């Protein structure tokens, strides 16, 4: 479309292009679907709310990973470090009498965000394997530290004496997890708004540019490293929020949130649905978590095997994950329609 005219300096951009940019961030009907589904699930599946909560927490976690990995192109093997940091922060606060969930949430987000800022400033000069090793190394250091600091963190038994006060002083934590589910949903909504705002902004576009070609972005004047550090810190704060919410709802923090397997599962959930897409984080976790609950109960070895096979298949054939395949199908059907209607 842009190619079938010649432009000279001083021409206004074509009206279609302006309309595209203005309408890009407008809400469409499809944007409400995940929230309707989440609310409906609350009423339709009252006995599966703990599973639902697990999915909601995972969605927030994977959203934070998508921000750094999918949009900014920083491959991190250790994002669970911030999840765990947030979880233990909320946990330790709750154990020591500061059990208000919202307070714990905010402090955890701040702590994780600061940790992201500091570690990002240090490690984001590196690329490739070195960067991966930094992220993995920080994760492992944190895991080892949490393991050793048993008095503070409960060590390998986990942190279990959490006393979390009722939400906003009104809603108590019930056995079915109703309060927990709604709490997670609201927190997820806020987190999503943050991510969407970033992604739709010029800052977000520059991140994609950095992912595609950092040297070129540097050449046109974008402060690459600063942007990467900022997005890393924001993503860390989001991951920490997810960790804190998880800890508060379960009133327990397990050491495995700091394991490599946990961070890897976050990456897997992301790539299943397609990184660099706003809604990838909504599709991957439900599929992964529900499948793992069904299959791992049957036979854990079976689950691990098929997970590995699916992962290999997705990387080799399904570039862009489920959303990528959906995109291709839509484009293919559109091309078919164009051919049929001359």
């Amino acid at each position, binding site marked *: 479309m842009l190619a079938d005219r010649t432009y000279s300096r001083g021409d206004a951009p074509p009206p279609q292009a302006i309309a595209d940019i203005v309408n890009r961030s407008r809400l469409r009907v499809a944007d409400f679907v995940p929230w309707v589904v989440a609310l409906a699930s609350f009423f339709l599946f009252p006995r599966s709310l703990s599973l639902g909560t697990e999915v909601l927490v995972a969605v927030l976690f994977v959203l934070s990973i998508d921000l750094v990995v999918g949009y900014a192109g920083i*491959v991190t093997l250790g994002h669970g470090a911030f999840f765990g940091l947030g979880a233990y922060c909320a946990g330790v606060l709750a154990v020591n009498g500061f059990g208000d969930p919202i307070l714990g949430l905010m402090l955890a987000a701040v702590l994780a965000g600061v940790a992201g800022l500091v570690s990002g400033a240090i490690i984001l000069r590196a690329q490739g394997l070195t960067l991966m*090793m930094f992220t993995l190394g920080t994760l492992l250091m944190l895991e080892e530290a949490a393991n050793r600091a048993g008095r503070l963190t409960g060590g390998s038994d986990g942190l279990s004496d959490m006393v979390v006060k009722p939400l906003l002083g009104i809603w108590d934590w019930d056995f079915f997890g109703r309060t927990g589910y709604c709490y997670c949903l609201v927190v997820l909504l806020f987190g999503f708004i943050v991510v969407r705002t970033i992604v739709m902004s010029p800052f977000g576009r520059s991140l994609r540019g950095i992912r595609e070609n950092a040297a070129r972005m540097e050449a046109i004047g974008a402060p690459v490293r600063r942007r990467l550090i900022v997005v890393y810190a924001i993503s860390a704060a989001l991951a920490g929020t997810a960790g804190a919410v998880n800890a508060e709802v379960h009133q327990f923090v397990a050491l495995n949130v700091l394991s490599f397997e946990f961070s890897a599962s976050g990456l897997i959930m992301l790539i299943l649905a397609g990184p660099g897409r706003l809604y990838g984080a909504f599709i991957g976790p439900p599929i992964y978590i529900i499948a793992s609950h069904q299959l791992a109960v049957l036979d854990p070895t079976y689950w*691990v*095997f098929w997970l590995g096979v699916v992962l290999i298949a997705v990387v080799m054939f399904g570039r862009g994950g489920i959303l990528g395949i959906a995109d291709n199908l839509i484009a293919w059907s559109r091309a078919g329609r164009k051919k049929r209607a001359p």
Partner: protein
Amino acid sequence: MSIAIGILLNGLASAMILYIIAVGLSVTMGIMRFINLAHCVFAMAGGYLAAYLIQGAGIPFAFAIVLAAILVALLSIPIERLLYAPLYAASELEQALFSIGVMFVAVAIARYFFGPAPLSFTVPEALRGQIDLGSVMPAYRILLIVVGFVVFAALWTLVETTSIGRKLRATVENRRVAEVVGIRCDRLMLLTFALGTGLAALGGALGAEIMPIRPNYAFDQLNYVLIVVAVGGMGTLTGPFLAALLLGIADTACKYFLPEVGAFFIFGAMVAILLWRPQGLLGRA
């Protein structure tokens, strides 16, 4: 004094096993630029295969280990051609996730065929004695140290003096120019991959006493092997050797003198060294 020697020798033994496993990864990563987190899968395969050959087929220890290494190397050729080669141009994320997928499949297969318990390792008759070198050490550990140095010397000779070694170094340094000059890089990469996985299998089988062979092996040892490669510098032979020495001895010393700190020191040291030299101690910038 005898404690110091004991720590040194024990650290050296673990270091040599780590080196034998890691050197293959370092060279393949340097030449293929492929983030292969599943390298330890081949080490595990070597361990299981050697155990099967010794216990199932009654083959003597030394032959079994060498045979296992050769078999794994041969097996890795079709794996490289079918699975790895199509992904050389893929992004780092995809390569990392692919190799994690391979690790999962390997864990499942190992658990299915061999069960979740670690393999019991019996040192062969001839090597059950002890040697006193200022500290009393099991003879087997001394063997590990000797084998490690022999492997290092052999690799060094291969890379520095033979024509294949020259071609390897050229490809690691600048693959495009190497291809222009007429070096068959894809064949070289295949050969390197097979050599690397064969060495990993050798290390896995030899080191089964220190690093127990169990289905989760690839995940257990991933951290240490990656640290050796990253700290030593990808694409070099001597880098991982140096890094493995430092890591093995420091880790053993730490566990002895500062058990509360544990592995924390190792990871912290890795981050510190990489901050100082991101390309690794002996890597190319």
